[in-house]
């Protein structure tokens, strides 16, 4: 088995594990959102690396160097996923802004304690 040819997929695993670690162990809500964004980027990188064919060109016919092209469908999925990621990240950050306003803190433990 050649581990070097699997390098993008290992980077995908690294990104997702880093995001999962941040989500599980950090208490700051901003850092948790950063972890979620890391996991989103891992998923996007996974989709793009699924589309890769060695030695092929981008799937655009305008002045293409050759007619051998990589798979277009994962690229389209990634394209929509990035915009969705931006919008949902903005929604989560808005929640954090309102939590900061109401509770005065963004530590998840203290926010939970205030509810009692």
């Amino acid at each position, binding site marked *: 088995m050649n581990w070097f040819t699997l390098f993008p997929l290992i980077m995908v695993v690294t990104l997702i594990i880093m995001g999962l670690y941040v989500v599980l162990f950090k208490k700051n809500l901003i850092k948790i959102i950063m972890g979620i964004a890391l996991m989103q980027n891992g998923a996007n990188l996974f989709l793009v690396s699924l589309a*890769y064919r060695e030695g092929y060109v981008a799937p655009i016919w305008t002045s293409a160097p050759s007619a051998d092209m990589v798979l277009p*469908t994962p690229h*389209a999925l990634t394209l*929509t996923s990035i915009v969705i990621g931006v919008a949902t990240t903005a929604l989560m950050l808005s929640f954090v802004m309102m939590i900061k306003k109401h509770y005065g803190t963004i530590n998840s433990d203290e926010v939970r304690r205030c509810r009692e």
Partner: protein
Amino acid sequence: MKKIIALIALIVISAFMLGGVAEMRGDDGSFGNPVETEMDDFFLEDSQDHNQVNNVVTAVLFDYRGLDTLGEATVLFSAVSGVLTVLRKYKLSKKENLTKLTKSSKGGKK
């Protein structure tokens, strides 16, 4: 205790993901040789035959998987509506003023 459980879960999940990556792509484990490509090869040919579009990614986005893009636009619309709703101007009544609640609970500890 909670942290130990979370650590064990993290290690197990990462082990499964690394094993899955190692077993991907058939026997040789090579990167860059997708196996199932009939649909994408059809898109590459058909986007010029029937759609007259050079950019195959755009053709997939707006024609073959257009319903996916419509759902994506709806999700974007919903997210923006959520941001507008969360960040609107409003006043809390005194009973549910959580800021005061926080301060009184902090002060009540003594």
